């Protein structure tokens, strides 16, 4: 008996699972750096977050929705890794569980699961924790290279924290700012991750390796990371030239904080970014502008999470107004 179906009769060897697996592979360099820098605590945060995300999705599909188990598509594992990447290594385990619940239970499954959520689940979880537990979320253990079992928490400041301080104090006391300046990590430290911060964001190099891998495997295109980073960089550079304020030093700003993590792994999330290239560019430029505004003109030192979440909310609108040009029709 011959089988019949409509064309095409062949399929690309890519599946949702294989795409997600590629993203996890792209996240691996940053995972390794987090463990090298923050030791066993980073491993604890990662494992807790990933296990909790998978477990929550499994429980919800099994007992609440009574639908197919979707954990094998690996998207929950990515959310777990990204949530962990956005937490300091000293984060208490029970708080991570709450974050995972908000990410998967509320931001993802309540909307209908993969493909239907409006907000990036990992960022929703992070922002929930950031607002609920500001003290724990802004305590930054000092990186301790290769001292794997070290669990003593010696805290340090993040690069952006120092910059913000300089900015606030510079008008009052120049001396204070000079003291702080020496605490700033150099470019090399920021590239390899020898600086305070969330466990996944510290090493710019590891994140860029992940970006190259995803571009080579055609998991994402270059548009969102490029336009996001370029917009932010240009705005910062212009302000820096005009004010000569060290707070705006563009390369330090580019390499520090969650900008690269956000631009490469969070803003590019398929589900919560626009479908067409034109829409993606608008989205990315919006993220860049908002990050700039929040970083420099709000009370927060960092604005990537808020910027991406705000732009997430605009995605349906952007999609509506940026259809692709159809062959044989005029450019609008």
């Amino acid at each position, binding site marked *: 008996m011959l089988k019949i*179906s409509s064309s095409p009769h062949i399929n690309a060897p890519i*599946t949702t699972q294989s*795409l997600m697996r590629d993203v996890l592979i792209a996240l691996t360099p940053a995972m390794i750096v987090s463990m090298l820098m923050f030791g066993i605590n980073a491993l604890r945060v990662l494992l807790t977050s990933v296990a909790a995300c998978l477990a929550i999705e499994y429980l919800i599909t099994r007992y609440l929705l009574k639908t197919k188990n979707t954990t094998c598509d690996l*998207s929950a594992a990515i959310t777990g890794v990204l949530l962990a990447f956005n937490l300091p290594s000293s984060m208490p385990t029970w708080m991570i569980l709450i974050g995972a619940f908000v990410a998967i239970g509320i931001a993802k499954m309540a909307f209908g699961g993969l*493909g239907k959520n409006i907000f990036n689940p990992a960022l929703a979880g992070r922002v929930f924790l950031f607002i609920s537990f500001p003290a724990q979320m802004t305590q930054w253990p000092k990186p301790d290279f290769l001292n794997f079992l070290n669990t003593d928490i010696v805290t340090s400041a993040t690069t952006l924290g120092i910059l913000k301080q300089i900015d606030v104090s510079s008008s009052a006391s120049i001396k204070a700012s000079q003291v702080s300046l020496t605490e700033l990590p150099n470019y090399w430290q920021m590239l390899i991750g020898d600086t305070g911060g969330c466990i996944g964001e510290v090493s710019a190099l590891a994140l860029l390796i992940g970006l190259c891998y995803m571009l080579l495997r055609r998991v994402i295109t270059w548009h969102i990371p490029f336009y996001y980073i370029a917009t932010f960089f240009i705005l910062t550079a212009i302000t820096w030239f005009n004010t000569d304020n060290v707070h705006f030093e563009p390369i330090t700003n580019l390499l520090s904080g969650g900008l690269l993590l956000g631009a490469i792994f969070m803003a590019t999330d398929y*589900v919560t970014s626009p479908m067409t290239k034109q829409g993606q560019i608008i989205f990315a430029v919006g993220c860049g502008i908002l990050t700039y505004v929040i970083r420099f003109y709000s009370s927060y030192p960092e604005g990537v999470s808020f910027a991406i979440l705000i732009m997430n909310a605009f995605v349906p609108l952007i999609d509506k107004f940026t259809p692709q040009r159809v062959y*044989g*029709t005029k450019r609008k």
Partner: protein
Amino acid sequence: MCKKTFSFGGLHLNKHKISALSPIQDAGVPPFVYIPIKQHIGSPAQIIVKQGDKVKIGTLLAQAYGTISANIHSSVAGEIKKIEEVQSESGYFEQVITIQTTADDYEAGIDTSTQISNDIPQNSAEIIELIKAAGIVGMGGAGFPTPIKTSIPANKSVQYLIINGIECEPYLTADGALMLEKPEEIVIGAKILNKILGIQNAIIAIDENKPLAIEKITQITKRYVGVNVTVCKSKYPQGGERQLINDVTGREVPSGKLPIDVGCVVQNVGTVFAVYEAVMKHKPLYERIVTVSGDTNLTTAGNYRVRVGTPADYLLNLAHTKQSQIGKLLFGGPMMGISSVSLQAPINKTTGGLIVIGTQDSLRAEESGCIRCGKCAEVCPMGLMPFAIASNLRRNNTAPLKALHAADCIGCGCCAYICPAKIPLVDYCKLGKYEANKQK
């Protein structure tokens, strides 16, 4: 040479051109042939023979009927046994003329020699009559009667005649083999079409993975004024009519219009060869080149010269196909071909290939939810948004389909091929096209 390509979407497919360098073998004459009276777009031809009639190769069996139709000729010598309905590859019962074959015997006037003749008749009307009489239709797959395509309405003008030698579907090599073996005939065919279109600008478009054909035809075009070769990138669907026009001329056929509206006529190389044979050799269209290919565990691959009406299983036997293990038998390529309901379905004028797919590969992968990756829109060569067409249809919302240009879908299959969630997007787009056309 600068390689051209189209500006929207497209895919780089694994080509699987297993039979690319296989010479064309004669498939011979099966004991029975089943000649369908509708092998083209338009109305079926009208049967002018009856049971018991003796026919020769090239005898007219059915006459074109209505404005869009084509003559059907006998591909064998023999006796008409039955006029019956059999299942075509698409599953519909269609009227066929069943002929029991005897030894080859040609109608008077058909020149069966392979000697090249390039003494093109002077009178265009005479040429068009010859093409019409020979029952030539577009052999790239659509089967649009050629004489209609080459009769240009008074208010339109032609600047380009594009000869489509791309063959971008995986596995298929019939056009490639024809270009290797009959390059001069194709060039003369292009000259003939130039003549009736009143232009001196035929462009034979060949894609870069056929270097031998490019070389041969380029050599020959040096001796013929008004015929040139353009090399295109190997990209699917480079051979789509609208994509090819975009490559060669940079023009876009406006939505809802025809190639002639931008001054282009596109003909497949197989069709051009048939035009040569009709005009120079007085030979009606009763045979064509067919590739047999596919899963190499199930079949050998090759190119065959096949009489129209030959049942598919006769040809599969020649290629040593393990017929019991076939999952899907495709008439045409794997991206746009039709999966046949029957192993006995007859080869017709538009069948470029029989592709054999194993049982395992014939199953559709399980569908999961759309992850909004946008890859379908990225690869669509028409710039459509298949995800939007599908999601609207799922909600029974047909109103936006027209604005989404669902009617412009060419059915190339890129979207469904690339979809990681394995959503049958082409099915949705075909339905969308139907719904959008209803709204006109």
